[in-house]
């Protein structure tokens, strides 16, 4: 089974992603906690693309594909922005007290924690990020 969602790099397009994941959850009969985790991981990954792969341009495409069969369940996020490899992001120090914690830096960390594996490749001038459930 494959489903595809087309977004543009506008923060106001993010709720479409949430609705799409909820729809997949119903169609593919996914458990509620998994739908929540997928919702969160995909949002963080897509928002990172908006912020880092397309820092200046507007109206640029981001494609999210869900693939599920008996052997594998994974999502692929593709964009045509500048090369950006989120798997190289440094993990935040989550043991710091509130006064020492920097604001931000949690997005990709959450993706890595919520998915079993993520992988990145640059191909045909595209960033291709795969998120394995």
């Amino acid at each position, binding site marked *: 089974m494959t489903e595809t969602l087309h977004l543009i790099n506008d*923060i*106001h397009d*993010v*709720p479409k992603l*949430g609705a799409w994941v909820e729809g997949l959850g119903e169609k593919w009969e996914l458990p*509620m*906690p998994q739908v*929540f*985790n997928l*919702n*969160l991981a995909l*949002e*963080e990954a897509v*928002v990172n693309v908006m912020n880092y792969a397309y820092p200046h341009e507007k109206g640029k495409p981001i494609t999210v594909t869900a693939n599920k069969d008996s052997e594998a369940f994974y999502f692929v996020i593709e964009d045509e922005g500048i090369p950006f490899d989120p798997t190289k992001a440094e993990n*935040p120090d*989550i*043991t*710091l*007290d*509130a*006064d020492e*914690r920097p*604001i*931000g830096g*949690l*997005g990709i*960390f*959450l993706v890595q*924690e*919520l998915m079993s594996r993520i992988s990145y490749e640059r191909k045909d001038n595209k960033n291709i990020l795969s998120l394995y459930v």
Partner: protein
Amino acid sequence: MKLEIKEKEGILTGVLCGRLDTAAAQQFEKDMQPLMGQANKPIVLDCTQLDFISSSGLRLFLALRKQTLAKGGSVTIKGVNPEIKQVFTITGFFSLFNFE
């Protein structure tokens, strides 16, 4: 996403309702300014009706916590669902707030 702020006996309560995703966080940041401005008081964030939070929402929770640290108030988080609780645990946010 809605935020309703109430004050009773010196305790400020912010009741959050809906999805605090990246798109909603921009408006929420504006809506929470009365809490930021009174960070010398005990603040309760009632999350019983909060369905979802992303890192954009977490950063605003942390900003409020930092403000209360500076001003002498406190932040207590109430009624989070198990999925949101898990997000607080993963990110180490669980130890930064009081939970009820």
